[in-house]
């Protein structure tokens, strides 16, 4: 594969379990109570470093939706899905948003070393 274009996120980051590519940040979580057949999933406002598959109609617990699977750009493994359109009015808020399945991502901290000084200071005060 060519030279990957990978975006770096900051803050509390969720990354791909296989290759640790940054996928989303804590700030972008809309809801933590989504479900899929593999277990829990989080709905995010936006995600990074994913490529989109084919759109298809899927019947989910909340109704019929047009969704597309999303994959990590780096390793290609599936990480969740994106809502393209929702057919029911009360589900419209999901349009354009993405879901990452808990099974496929892990929580890591930012690599920007702004915080060590602060942590040391706090630790010294304990």
């Amino acid at each position, binding site marked *: *594969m060519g030279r990957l274009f990978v975006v770096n996120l900051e803050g509390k980051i969720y990354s791909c379990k296989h290759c640790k590519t940054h996928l989303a940040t804590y700030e972008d979580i809309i809801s933590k109570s989504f479900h899929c057949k593999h277990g829990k999933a989080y709905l995010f406002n936006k995600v990074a470093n994913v490529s989109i598959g084919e759109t298809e109609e899927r019947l989910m617990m909340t109704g019929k939706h047009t969704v597309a699977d999303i994959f990590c750009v780096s390793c290609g493994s599936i990480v969740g899905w994106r809502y393209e359109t929702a057919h029911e009015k009360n589900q419209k808020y999901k349009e354009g948003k993405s879901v990452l399945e808990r099974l496929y991502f892990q929580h890591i901290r930012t690599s920007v070393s702004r915080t060590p000084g602060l942590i040391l200071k706090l630790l010294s005060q304990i």
Partner: protein
Amino acid sequence: MGVVEDTEPPLKRAKRLTDEPNGFSANSSVRGSSVNNNSLGDLMARPLTSQGDEETIGSKGVIKKSEFIRIITRALYSLGYDKTGAMLEEESGISLHNSTIKLFLQQVTDGKWDQSVKTLHRIGLPDEKAVKSASFLLLEQKFLELLKVENIADALGTLRNEMAPLRINTKRVHELASSLISPSSFISHTTSTPGKESVNSRSKVLEELQNLLPASVIIPEKRLEYLVENSLHIQRDSCVFHNTLDSDLSLYSDHQCGKHQIPSQTLQILESHTDEVWFLQFSHNGKYLASSSKDQTAIIWEISVDGHISLKHTLVGHQKPVIAILWSPDDRQVLTCGAEEVIRRWDVDSGDCVHMYEKGGISPISCGWYPDGQGIIAGMTDRSICMWDLDGRELECWKGQRTQKVSDIAMTDDGKWLVSVCKDSVISLFDREATVERLIEEEEMITSFSLSNDNKYILVNLLNQEIRLWNIEGDPKIVSRYKGHKRSRFIIRSCFGGYKQAFVASGSEDSQVYIWHRSTGKLIVELPGHAGAVNCVSWSPTNLHMLASASDDGTIRIWGLDRINQQNQKKHVHGSSSNGVIHRCNGN
């Protein structure tokens, strides 16, 4: 109407005889109209034009016959065909200039100023101001000539009695008056070579008279040439596929390059790399091609005169994939950048690595040359921008400029702007002298960019598969958008190319090369052939028809003109009408 018909045919035949040696493009319309005018039906269809006092020729009825003949006559005289010019005036019965004007022009050429002023008034121009300005001009020349022969008294008389009463251009009158005091210094100041000078200044007077008096009175010189050139320019500018040199424009048929002037056939496949090829670039002089690959090497290729490409040097030394290779302004050296590794400088002739640039703890992910070739810039992994001189001494280091690790950096080749991606969707144009910054604010994340040769435009590749063209003269403005190619995971590069950089080419993740027409944004060709994503394209700066592409399939393809179809097009042209849509291509 009957009268018109009777006199037309011999006229048309005569005109064709005089036209053919000069081969004007008007030929086809003349032939066409001679057929038209001879049919009664056609005359009936255009009652208005034939009823007017001006006969018209041409299929659209906008060309006035007397004007047409007069500019042809003028052109004949300019080209030196005086006899033919006179014959045309006689045969057509339309003289270039009426007798008064002829007399006037002759008098000016002979320097009979007083008479010429009188004749000028006899011409009967409606514009008072023009008459006055022209008189002033003639009298001024009279004054200057009198001054030259040191006839001060008469010169003064002219100035006082003839020029001043006109009450125009008083500043010049004062200037001339002061020149009376020191005539010799004034003359030496204003004249060039003695002897020829009187002739030169008189023809200059004629030129200026041409500008002052209306064009219908004195037919401007070179009017016909000007009209033909205009027409060629319009044809060339409206030719979407135009990719030939100006010298190939012809008057014989409307110019339109077919798609066969765009490189669209693979001429050569270069297979020396052993892994994905990520970057390539032609040298400024078009004699070399440099490519860099995931196989940790870079290759310098040599291009022979007939366009054949062969390997010159393989640059071995990097321990990581080589993400870019850039030519120095004089094409004698190249810079290579190893992915998060080091920057190496190589000599093109020997293929040896001359220097290595690195900084402890951080590594470069993009690089560029100073426009004078005496320094190097690099975008580093800690988001700073570093600048070194050739020996590796750090010149400057700017911290915290960029928010993304992976981003391009470049310096315009006039040394003015440092261009870098500073935020996800913002490109910073930093003026190094004035230390001002201009920003290109995009709506989507930027993956790569490339600058045009003239430093006035930048192509920005976005995350959402769009390429946008921005004008960076003054405040950045978006100019065009190009869509159609695929990009979802990789850094795909695009470039300018072709005649006057009128095309935009790009790689794509669907393994094709895409080429758009730059000003209209229209997709012209998609070139399949590669077996993997096309990461980078480069168009030769010297060969309008050579394009190179680098792909994940490990090969480089050289694209050129479709030779077979070109031959067919040529055969097609010979069989078609002279007004054909297909242009006879340059003779290769």
